[in-house]
């Protein structure tokens, strides 16, 4: 039952959700359709839309990284170019072209695919470091072009448009957030299903084969380069769809949409969720968007916490958050999950304290540095205090040190419980 590989790309055969059955898809669709009834607020829908776009983008990225073994540092190029092109098509619609808005993502996808075809023709010749370096170079190149080729990229202001100018679809003009929400989740489901089904085709499987052992795949009649190229093209298509959805939601695209920072973010999102699982990028995108939007409301330091979470994930759970959950399937199936309940419960309290006190330390430090002169009053977790005083900082440090100490003491016990829960009576881990 153990995973035979330590590479996070190939977490093994454990699946978190059985996506081969129709049920998870139906549940997801129904939940997404009913969601506006529960969280009808404009901001909630905006967050979900942002999540949906990130999910499609991250899934398309995982077609490269997780399924094809290609580490790309420039994937935002395809989402960005798809988005810019969609923006131009949207403006053409405003100028009289007949195209209902729900069809726009197809054009974004085709344009992303076209560029993936062009760039992939040389970048996929080699895998590994060479591929990664070329993707970095192309990413930088396109980002630089976006400032130079003003007619297409709109220079520093970017390109903006109006999504409501197209023909109405069943009386919808997509002016309201709710209508855009339904359009977005429609494409989210189509794209996710499309990418899932792609992974179940001969080319999808051979992409895994080339990832695992490109030499062997060549001796089975497959050109490793062509296999990578095709994954790359398919990935570009879905990234372009994500770009079009971005264009529809925000009605503006700028250089930021295709620069290296965005490319880096999607790598982070995908890895955070877990590259070895189909649902990994979905989990990553949801967590990331929540951190960015919800945590971002409370603290300016959200990026720091995201960074720490990412580091912790890479160091301790290389299979990502999804891998962390999937790890517990085996003890669950063996009926041994009970062994873990008590140690986890004991760990819970100090862990929460460690996180809160650690964050408090950062926030107080940040407040001392950033607040205006004379403004030393700050409020955290519902407590108002003087950030320049010694005791809040001291409390945070003491609580943090003590809780880390407790966690450290408990870790041996958790490890023992884990070994007990996963013990199958055979040798090895």
């Amino acid at each position, binding site marked *: 039952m153990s995973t035979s590989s330590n590479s996070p790309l190939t977490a093994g055969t454990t699946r978190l959700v059985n996506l081969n059955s129709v049920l998870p898809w139906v549940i997801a669709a129904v939940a997404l359709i009913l969601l506006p009834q529960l969280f009808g607020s404009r901001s909630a829908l905006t967050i979900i839309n942002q999540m949906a776009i990130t999910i499609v983008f991250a899934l398309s990225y995982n077609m490269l990284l997780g399924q094809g073994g290609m580490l790309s540092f420039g994937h935002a190029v395809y989402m960005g170019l798809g988005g810019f092109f969609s923006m131009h098509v949207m403006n053409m619609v405003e100028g009289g072209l007949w195209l209902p808005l729900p069809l726009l993502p197809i054009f974004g996808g085709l344009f992303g695919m076209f560029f993936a075809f062009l760039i992939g023709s040389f970048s996929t010749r080699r895998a590994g470091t060479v591929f990664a370096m070329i993707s970095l170079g192309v990413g930088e190149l396109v980002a630089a072009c976006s400032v130079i080729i003003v007619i297409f990229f709109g220079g520093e202001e970017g390109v903006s448009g109006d999504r409501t100018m197209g023909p109405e679809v069943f009386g919808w003009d997509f002016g309201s957030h709710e209508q855009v929400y339904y359009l977005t989740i429609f494409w989210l489901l189509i794209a996710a299903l499309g990418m899932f*089904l792609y992974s179940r085709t001969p080319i999808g499987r051979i992409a895994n084969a080339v990832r695992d052992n490109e030499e*062997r795949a060549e001796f089975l*009649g497959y050109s490793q380069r062509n296999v990578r190229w095709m994954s790359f093209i398919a990935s570009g298509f879905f990234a372009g769809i994500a770009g079009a959805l971005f264009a529809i939601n925000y009605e503006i695209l700028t250089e930021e949409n295709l620069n290296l920072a965005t490319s880096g973010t999607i790598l982070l999102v995908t890895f955070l969720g877990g590259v070895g699982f189909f649902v990994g990028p979905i989990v990553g995108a949801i967590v990331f968007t929540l951190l960015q939007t919800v945590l971002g409301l409370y603290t300016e330091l959200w990026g720091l916490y995201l960074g720490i979470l990412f580091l912790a994930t890479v160091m301790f759970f290389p299979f990502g958050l999804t891998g962390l959950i999937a790890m517990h399937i085996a003890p669950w199936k063996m009926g041994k999950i009970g062994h873990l309940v008590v140690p986890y419960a004991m760990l819970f309290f100090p862990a929460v304290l460690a996180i809160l006190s650690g964050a408090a330390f950062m926030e107080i430090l940040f407040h001392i540095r950033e607040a205006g002169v004379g403004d030393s009053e700050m409020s955290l977790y519902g407590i108002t205090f003087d950030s320049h005083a010694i005791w809040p900082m001291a409390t945070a440090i003491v609580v943090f040190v003590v809780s880390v100490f407790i966690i450290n003491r408990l870790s041996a016990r958790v490890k023992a419980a884990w070994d007990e829960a996963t013990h199958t009576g055979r040798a090895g881990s």
Partner: protein
Amino acid sequence: MSAPAIELRNLEKSFGLAKIIQGVNLSIEKGERHAIIGPNGAGKSTLFNLITGKYTPTAGQVLMHGEDVSGMKPFQINRKGLSRSFQITNIFHNMTVFENVRCGLLWSMGYKYSFWHMINGQKALTEKADEIIEQINLTSRRNMVAGALAYAEQRALEIGITIAGGADIIMLDEPCAGMSHSETELIVDLIRKVTEGKTLIIVEHDMGVIFDLADKISVLVYGEIIESDTPEAVRASVAVKEAYLGTTLEDA
């Protein structure tokens, strides 16, 4: 008379200044079981890699059924009906036994780069894969991850993947390396069974296996073929004895 399955004409390969293969001429007839033997460092693996397209010859030609294939890529040569196994087990460790064999079948069954077939729904493909798994006696391991198989089972799977595509020339690079005596016997029986009616080219250190399997033996020493004949003739050859210091063949 039809062209030989494999013909090597003045084949040479150098890495920098080192001449590893120095003008090899060899002709392997269709349906022949041909073994290549020689001391360590003689260039057996290099010769293998030249025939299968992993290396490009420095000079000379590789002909397959009379057609010049020198300089072609491995996948192109594979599509023409040549398949190989590897000295170091070279399977897809993270896939199940079934998926491994299925990967070996995909191209030959015409799926190529298809993204319009659902792979699990292909009945003929699944049946064919199961048939091969049964041939290599791994039916009970069908859904196990290949990396978790015992070594001998991995070697059997390697052969299964190699023959899956239905190639008519099979090249096996030390299929019995690192195996116990009884495992070797099983794998030799397997090789004999699955290469029935095909051309077999085999590199192997175990002389028992060689003399058991081969119709013809070529002896490669320092990148040159010093003898290419029937097992009996090779066994009697003085030149070969000298190359092997007169020990190994006597033991066989």
